[in-house]
């Protein structure tokens, strides 16, 4: 576990591009109304799949954030990241000219960013042969392109790195940002993640049998898979004293984080992690990882149940609204930051039959005027890892 008692890391800006809204205002509104982001996929051919829906970003106009000249070179993941990063900086009321840009970094979790460029490039390789391939696509095949383009756009030259860690990629990025702020290796870090739902990714999820034909139903006894989502969530993170000094609005603080590897040791690693993180800080509220895959959801539900026993604990599964993705944790943490401040709880949609009884207190209808002091964010990838993050008001 990593924590910093002397000097918390605080969230002072939020940027969001999601299937349920671009910008925190729309995002927050749709969260509190329990409006999900799933829609029929229209931008590529889905006729051969039984699953037809995903939480795609709609109505995103990159020109609001990026000049047309630069836009030509950018894939969607990079566009989402630049847009969310600019929103986070604006939301944090940061005038970059007044800061040392060498002390501002970006740490991103990338959910298959670059895959679409890879697919197009490789398609040309296979079908057209080596001599007719455009050199334009290749630079965008690397997962670090999104963070790199964002650093170029914002001219920030501090710490810059990209993580992929199964379905906990954004949490890995936030964990490392916390560590670097604690070490005083940066003054501000844009941390979070981006997912781009490209045709090949949707195809792969389908072929691997991960997807439901219906809407995802987290914690449901017969949850038969997830639906993918996309977008970017960016947190502006800084040390508490710096934030206070510049009079920044503080959404909340990140108190402690845990990263745990699966390591071929059964499913107890998630439970052990939860037990460890709640040792000195018992939350009232959990933002669960559950995505509608009953096997994973059951492990998570049992872990929560075993640790909290009969304590009052409320659980929400936001992937029922925004879908699943390797870096979807970033959007969920943006949501959690808003919940801490705007005193609402979004609902878990499509929850009908509990996996076991008595079951957890799953919030199924939106709640207003509900003050929350702390949220335990769970991110769980069955054969890879668990990441846990404690957020406090």
């Amino acid at each position: 576990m990593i924590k910093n008692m002397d000097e918390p890391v605080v969230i002072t800006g939020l940027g969001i591009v999601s299937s349920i809204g671009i910008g925190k205002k729309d995002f927050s509104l749709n969260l509190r109304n329990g409006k999900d982001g799933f829609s029929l996929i229209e931008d590529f051919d889905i006729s051969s799949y039984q699953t037809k829906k995903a939480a795609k970003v709609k109505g995103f106009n990159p020109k609001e954030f990026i000049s047309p000249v630069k836009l030509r070179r950018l894939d969607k993941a990079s566009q989402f990241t630049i847009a969310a990063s600019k929103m986070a900086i604006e939301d944090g009321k940061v005038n970059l000219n007044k800061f040392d840009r060498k002390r501002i970094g970006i740490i991103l979790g990338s959910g298959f960013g670059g895959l679409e460029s890879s697919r197009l490039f490789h398609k040309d390789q296979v079908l057209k042969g080596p001599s007719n391939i455009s050199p334009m696509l290749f630079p965008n095949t690397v997962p670090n392109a999104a963070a790199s383009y964002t650093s170029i756009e914002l001219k920030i030259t501090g710490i810059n790195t990209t993580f992929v860690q199964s379905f906990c990629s954004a949490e890995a990025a936030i964990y490392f940002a916390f560590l670097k702020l604690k070490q005083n290796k940066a003054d501000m870090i844009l941390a979070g993640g981006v997912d781009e739902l490209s045709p090949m990714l949707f195809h792969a999820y389908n072929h691997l049998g991960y997807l439901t034909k219906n809407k995802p139903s987290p914690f449901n006894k017969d949850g038969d898979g997830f639906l993918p989502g996309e977008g970017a969530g960016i947190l502006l993170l800084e040390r508490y004293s710096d934030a206070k000094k510049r009079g920044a609005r503080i959404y909340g603080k990140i108190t402690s984080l845990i990263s745990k590897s699966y390591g071929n040791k059964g499913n107890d690693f998630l439970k052990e992690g939860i037990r460890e993180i709640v040792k000195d800080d018992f939350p009232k509220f959990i933002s669960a990882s559950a995505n509608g895959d009953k096997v994973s959801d059951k492990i998570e539900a049992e872990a929560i149940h075993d640790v909290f026993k009969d304590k009052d604990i409320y659980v929400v599964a936001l992937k029922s609204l925004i879908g699943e993705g390797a870096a979807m944790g970033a959007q969920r943490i943006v949501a959690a930051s808003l919940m801490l401040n705007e005193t609402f709880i979004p609902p878990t949609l499509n929850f009908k039959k509990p996996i076991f009884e008595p079951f957890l207190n799953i919030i199924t209808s939106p709640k207003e005027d509900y003050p929350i002091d702390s949220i335990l964010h769970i991110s769980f990838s069955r054969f890879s890892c668990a990441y846990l993050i404690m957020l406090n008001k």
Partner: protein
Amino acid sequence: MITGLGTFLSGGKNIDEFRKTLFEGISKIKNITLFDTKGYHSRIAAEIKDYNPYNYFSKKELNRLSRTDQFAIIAAKEAIKISRLSIDELRKKRVGISLGAGTGGMFLAEKYHKEYLKKKKPKPSLLIPFIPSYTTDQVAKELGIKGPIFTTTTACSSSATAIGIGADIILEGIADIMITGGSDSLCELTFGGFNSLRAMDPVTCRPFDKDRAGMVLGEGAAILVLESEQSALSRDAPILGEFLGYAMVGEAYHITAPEETGELQSYVMELALKDANISKDEIDLINAHGTGTPHNDLVETVAIKKLFGKKAYNIPVTANKSMIGHCLGSAGAVEAAASLISILEGFIPPTINIKNLDPKCDLDYVTEGARIKNINYVLSNSFAFGGNLTSLIIGKRA
């Protein structure tokens, strides 16, 4: 403390073989046999040859492991063996893992995609190793690692950064042992990609040569076991050297080209020295990023001179890629391993294939063959696509 080291490369399937390649200055660059290269401008790479996976893995295991995963597991097993750690011991200790990735399971995904494009029915299992963190998961599984887990994906600097993250985790007291490094393997997409950018030398990899025409790809894995001093001393571990510090910055200049004044490259080296608490005068060797691309080698030379001033001419600079190619996702770890070998064995591997030195690259690139020298501190650079710059400092045990 660095208490374990393992490599699996074209330049040797274990540390002893790799050391021999480095000492003798042998080029491992040959024609590619892994896939058809007809029609490409360059057709060479430092491919791992004479590799029979069945010598290392069962058929069942091979069904779920990409070449990248296989290389990583083999190198990790060598590293823990050298570290005198058993898997049983690892299970009992606070152990984490931090690996850098490049193409991950792309080679298998390409097979899938090829069949898909030809309207055949590829097996979906070819896609499972695609996500780059899969390699890290497989090594963690193999070694029973339960602690923190990270996979960095910043192209050519991934594994250098991954080692730094491993050191951070130990410094924070979160784990006592971190398995760090990286693995990568050749694939057609990356090969075609660098060809499409005309960034590949069709003849050989010749960093700092006047006629250098680009990089040559390599493949393989390098794993370093990092351990807290207390843990290492308490179990009387072999201490191979010390990881002293690192730094990373984003150049924020261009997605593929380095900024020509070398300002940020020089700055990241300076920050790494500061992090390690080492003065400029103490560096005995620079293990250069040195890819063989015209621009990169020149800017790196400029950046070294910018930071070290006149002293730059007295610091040997070596480019391992001249022998074993550019291993992308594992390059930083491979070069950290080579740096550690220099410290342990007291020699500097040569930069090979230089026939006519570029007059603008006027540092001491160790062209005459391996040089015997006592090495206390090495600076190792990894400068990636996207401007992800990382520098590491590795030292002899104090």
